């Protein structure tokens, strides 16, 4: 069965650089979520999209933005990167309405 695809799997950036993370949801899933997991922490909700519109927002820094495109894939754009942005970033997808969320393998971002 198709799963949630994230790219890249690993990313190394320098401080103040920009990063773009991509997420391809499971086919026919219309809702995409982004989570950030710092070292030794639990995943924290950043933002979600339903049918290409932002549906909910968590503790996402103003330096970050995201969008969902017409083919339902989503991109998380991160600017002016800081050392504290080093984390595992997960994308998840589901059908709208509180059904099971399926997570991608994550993108490990290291800011040096």
């Amino acid at each position, binding site marked *: 069965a198709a799963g949630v695809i994230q790219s890249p799997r690993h990313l190394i950036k320098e401080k103040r650089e920009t990063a773009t993370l991509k997420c391809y949801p499971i086919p026919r899933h219309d809702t995409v*979520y982004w989570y950030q997991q710092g070292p030794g922490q*639990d*995943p924290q*909700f950043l933002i979600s999209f339903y049918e290409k519109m932002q549906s*909910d927002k968590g503790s996402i820094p103003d330096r970050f933005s995201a969008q969902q495109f017409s083919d339902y894939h989503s991109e998380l754009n991160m600017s002016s990167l800081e050392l504290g942005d080093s984390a595992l970033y997960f994308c*998840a997808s589901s059908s709208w*309405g*509180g059904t099971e969320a399926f*997570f991608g393998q*994550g993108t490990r971002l290291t800011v040096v």
Partner: protein
Amino acid sequence: GIQVEQSPPDLILQEGANSTLRCNFSDSVNNLQWFHQNPWGQLINLFYIPSGTKQNGRLSATTVATERYSLLYISSSQTTDSGVYFCAVGANSKLTFGKGITLSVRP
């Protein structure tokens, strides 16, 4: 927001032992999931269980929604069961995770 508490925070087992992991949550939810995070960071779906009982091999889970708790049972544990177990709950689509339970299974 919803509060999620998992216990115990750490668990060490001898291979072959059984264990129960608990998740308490503070509000009504229509989504509850258990995940296993392996040493490579991958979050593996174990159960989608907003209510009732499910079993999958050596693992089973029970959620009592009216009392706002869920239990994950691991029987005949194996070293490959080691990792962090997360409970995550949501009122709709957004999930709030607990702090996780770190399980170490010794050979």
